């Protein structure tokens, strides 16, 4: 039997993330950052945060399919979308948003892609869920929920409305 975290729980997490991110931006003196969501789930989360923080620069979106490290094993993701960065990343403070942080490989790919667009001043990582079990030295600056899952379990964000987290954890 799966466990479902509904819209309500996610809204709470998003509220907490907004507050935490806002405080972090103040502490690091980050003004007018460029927020970038990772397709597809990360973009949904980024849309909420972008709105609640009332950021000025338009939201960017990246699809990391062409930067994955498992292309030779699993081939091209057929649902690949264009990356769209409405603003140069050069010398900007980037807030990178994803839905689930797991092995860290997606974030590695996203950083590589971002740096092909230019040299950011800083990158802050925000995720809705951290499920542990990292395989690369990556950590998130702001985390909505921490889930302790075994490798057999999956967690998936469905959306965009309503947002729901589905796991097959018992």
């Amino acid at each position, binding site marked *: 039997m799966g466990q479902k975290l509904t819209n309500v729980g996610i809204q709470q997490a998003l509220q907490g993330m907004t507050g935490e991110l806002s405080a972090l931006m103040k502490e690091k003196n980050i003004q007018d950052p460029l927020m970038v969501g990772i397709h597809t789930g990360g973009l949904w989360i980024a849309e909420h945060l972008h709105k609640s923080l009332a950021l000025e620069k338009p939201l960017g979106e990246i*699809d990391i*399919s*062409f*930067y*994955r490290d*498992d*292309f*030779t*094993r*699993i*081939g*091209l993701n*057929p649902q*690949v*979308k*264009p*990356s*769209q*960065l409405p603003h140069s990343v*050069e010398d900007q403070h980037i807030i990178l948003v994803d839905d689930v942080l*797991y*092995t860290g*490989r*997606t974030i590695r790919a996203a950083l*590589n*892609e971002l*740096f*092909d*667009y*230019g040299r950011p001043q800083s990158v802050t990582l925000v995720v809705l869920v951290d499920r542990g079990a990292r395989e690369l030295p990556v950590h998130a600056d702001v985390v909505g929920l921490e889930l302790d899952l075994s490798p057999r379990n999956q967690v998936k964000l469905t959306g965009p409305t309503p947002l729901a987290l589905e796991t097959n954890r018992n």
Partner: protein
Amino acid sequence: MSSSDQTASTSFNAPDCSQIQLNEHGRLHHFLTPQNLSKDILTEIMDVAESFSSVANQAVKKVPVLRGKTIVNLFFENSTRTRTTFELAAKRLSADVININVATSAASKGESVLDTIRTLEAMQVDMFVVRHADSGTAHFIARNVAPHVSVINAGDGSHAHPTQAMLDMFTIRRVKKDFSKLKVAIIGDILHSRVARSEIHALNILGAKEVRVIAPNTLLPIDAKALGVTVFNDLESGLDDVDVVIMLRLQRERMHGALLPSENEYFDRFGLTEEKLAYTKSDVTVMHPGPINRGVEMAASVADGPNSVVLQQVTNGIAVRMAVMTLILGQNRQVVGAE
């Protein structure tokens, strides 16, 4: 240019590429002609090309997706434009590219082509991009390469030029969105044009409302109607109410005998001028695969005019070729647990 295809254009029967192009999972393995491919596959090529179009906006115009792959541009016929865009596409995918131009002699071609292929295969090549003056060469090579090696046809005689057709479809889709409402006219040397054949196939597969060809009878294949087109011999009636005009280059190097009275007379009757353009829809899109013979196929004012997308075609050609290469080399992979 080429001297080896004296008669290929008029007597050529297209080989059936439909089986060999797909792997056992129904995915693209070689790209030889759009003929007999599904609408889904052609649409997927355009969708993936859309994603690659953003790579040109990067400071580093490169993605690592085909790192470690080796692609050989094997050109038996001169072409700067097509070879350059294939080369650039492969490089933007981080593949290693080798360009080989082979001067061909018609008499020994069968054996020498295979020898060339075997030699390159022994160097662990993953893909051949082949252009040849003889129809069917890419198909012949595809049938003879090792199973893990793929072939893209970059133009074979008068048969097919699938990536040119797909970049034109991609360009049309970006401007017009929906193929089902479109009347498209292809004008000029249909007889010798591999571009025209591939475009007619692609437009019909994608469900264009009407595909027209406009040409003098001497530049039309005998069975033109069998391609699924409406045939016109004059611009005025052929251009009436069309949404897209695709001009073809007069392939003087392929013409043998008196197919045309003179270039001036051709321009008078079939050259696209602003005056003639008035017969089309006002938001008509004008295309040309290049290189343009200005003042022969079209007036300079039309080629450089507001309806022309000639330069977008060139830009889109890179993204479309990146898409085809990635889709092909991204197949056949064993599925293991992704993150």
